[in-house]
């Protein structure tokens, strides 16, 4: 064991890109018995390794880097749409992905059928299907809590605890973090809190910019920690780790960032002055203690998930409990949860879930919760297929080779690369879950090359994904909150311009987001929380 070449993992993996190889990859077998193995390593991405050798490859005009065109075009589209124009529309990103996919096809050599088949191949990846199933369940649960008065319960709690203007941002951070941890969607928590909690805080004298930033920080906390969060699920399943174990191992990082963030909100809350508005009484009338019963609904999901049960089972139990609480305590009607709306009264309209309205439709929290994720589901399928095109064209291996050869040459630099790479991609792509899915294969491979275990990889991936999704003005989390302020019947129209915060102003104040990134940079350098595969192997992944 004296050979110095041991120090470089790359020389032994042979992650050569298939540059110059003809479609079909026949050339790689000639006279090189080790070539087949190296092709496995070169795959590096979303497909199952053992099957890769027999899969067709795509050759591009312009070489392997041209296979990055669909994804690169999509990223540029996302930056232009959300960063430059400030449009946070997921459906717009779907069109960007479609146009990018078509554009890439014109650079493919030979029969375009191989390119088209790769789109299907990418879309049928299990990683995407697993996340999609979890989103549908989490969406139904989140909206059912919302119609069950959970947010009103939190406002009641803040009022009962006599939270004042200076402490309101810190309280908003904690309560939004609690809500986001329970319902698993930072976007949903942001919308709920900006709708109900933000005006209440501004009206009692809290600084609007700091309060909005504190709400975003709470969303970061929940997105990062919640077992039912889409980013948590993606981080666990892409790194071959069980969701319960990932959540448990994540506490140390989340708390290390949350405590200084809480203190920072207390300090800044007393330093920054608020807008002068009057009339908070009306908002407080909506507060009701009973909604706090849904802390138990959240607890059921969290406890069941940490106990290692399948995430579908965990959320289903939470949903059953939430629906039961809503109906037993009168927190919502049956039709708030599920309603078939018909245009004319008939035999079925006496049923509690059938109503008469102007337009025939289906609605309720189950409906809106699940359908709310449809655009993101379509976008995810397209991103995964664009990633697969990159893999088949050799672009994935080329980037991986560059990172491992030139940047991640030891375990510290590898972890720093994982932190900064995840942060950068998430800083650019509006929808953080989509960005997370795109970067996940790189995190897996770079981490595995140094035997960094699945929990650590999942934590690096998710913390930086969650953080960057709520900081910059084009981030999806910031945009959904801003939309609540500037919409046609938004807070600005209702209360005046003091209720509208310029998204660029919140950037420095999303303390939990910034601190989470800093915690991981320090962790990468110092080894805080680092675990290797031999230390502890992940349990069976709780997925379908």
């Amino acid at each position: 064991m004296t050979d110095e070449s041991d120090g470089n993992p790359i020389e032994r993996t042979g992650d050569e890109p298939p540059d110059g190889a003809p479609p079909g990859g026949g050339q790689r077998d000639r006279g090189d018995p080790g070539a087949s193995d190296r092709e496995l390593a070169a795959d590096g991405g979303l497909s199952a390794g053992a099957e890769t050798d027999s899969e067709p490859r795509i050759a591009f005009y312009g070489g392997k880097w041209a296979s990055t065109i669909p994804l690169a075009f999509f990223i540029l589209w996302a930056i232009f749409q959300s960063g430059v124009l400030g449009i946070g529309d997921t459906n717009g990103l779907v069109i960007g992905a479609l146009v990018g996919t078509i554009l890439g096809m014109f650079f493919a050599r030979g029969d375009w059928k191989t390119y088209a088949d790769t789109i299907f191949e990418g879309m049928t990846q299990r990683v995407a299907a697993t996340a999609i199933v979890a989103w549908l369940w989490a969406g139904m649960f989140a909206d059912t809590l919302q119609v069950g008065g959970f947010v009103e319960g939190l406002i009641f709690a803040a009022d009962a605890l006599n939270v004042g203007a200076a402490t309101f941002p810190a309280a908003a951070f904690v309560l939004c973090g609690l809500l986001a941890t329970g319902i698993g969607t930072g976007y949903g928590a942001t919308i709920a809190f900006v709708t109900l909690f933000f005006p209440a805080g501004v009206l009692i004298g809290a600084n609007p910019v700091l309060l909005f930033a504190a709400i975003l920080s709470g969303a970061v906390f929940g997105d990062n920690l919640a077992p039912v969060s889409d980013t948590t699920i993606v981080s666990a399943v892409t790194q071959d780790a069980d969701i319960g174990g990932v959540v448990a191992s994540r506490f140390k990082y989340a708390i290390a960032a949350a405590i200084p963030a809480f203190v920072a909100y207390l300090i800044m809350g007393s330093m920054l002055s608020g807008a002068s508005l009057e009339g908070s009484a009306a908002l407080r009338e909506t507060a009701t203690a009973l909604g706090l019963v849904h802390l138990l609904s959240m607890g059921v999901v969290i406890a069941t998930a940490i106990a290692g049960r399948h995430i579908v089972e965990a959320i289903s139990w939470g949903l059953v409990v939430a629906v039961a609480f809503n109906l037993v305590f009168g927190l919502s009607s049956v039709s708030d949860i599920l309603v078939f709306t018909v245009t004319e009264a008939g035999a079925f309209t006496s049923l509690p879930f059938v109503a008469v309205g102007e337009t025939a439709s289906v609605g309720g929290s189950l409906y809106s919760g699940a359908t709310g994720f449809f655009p993101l589901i379509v976008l995810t399928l397209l991103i995964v297929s664009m990633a697969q095109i990159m893999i088949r064209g050799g672009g994935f291996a080329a980037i991986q080779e560059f990172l491992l050869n030139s940047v991640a040459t030891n375990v510290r630099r590898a972890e720093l690369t994982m932190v900064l790479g995840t942060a950068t991609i998430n800083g650019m792509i509006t929808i953080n879950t989509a960005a997370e899915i795109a970067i996940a294969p790189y995190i897996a491979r770079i981490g595995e090359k140094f035997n960094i275990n699945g929990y650590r990889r999942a934590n690096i991936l998710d913390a930086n994904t969650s953080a960057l999704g709520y900081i910059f003005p084009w981030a999806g989390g910031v945009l959904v909150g801003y939309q609540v302020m500037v919409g046609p019947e938004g807070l600005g129209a209702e209360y005046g311009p003091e209720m509208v915060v310029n998204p660029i102003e919140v950037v420095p104040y999303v303390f939990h987001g910034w601190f989470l990134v800093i915690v991981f940079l320090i962790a990468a350098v110092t080894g805080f929380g680092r675990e290797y595969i031999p230390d502890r192997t992940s349990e069976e992944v709780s997925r379908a």
Partner: protein
Amino acid sequence: MSRFDKFFAGLSFRGSTPDYDPGDVIEVMVTGEEGGEVVARIGDSTLRIEDAPADAVNTRVLVAIDTWDEAGHRGTGTYRETVGKSAF
């Protein structure tokens, strides 16, 4: 590992060169090849694995540690069985 222990697992400052003792049986990801033998890089330590299958790279295997040089953070071990593969 109990559920309680999961919260405290990894709560330490871990070095970049983990060491192992002869006789330990550990699960590792095989990270590369060298001179006809496969190796696993664990952090910045290196374990050479004997008797591993030819297609062992990017699979998770159980290895019995035979020798370990704590100064150089290098060791040798014997392949036991394949227990998994890369996350991707």
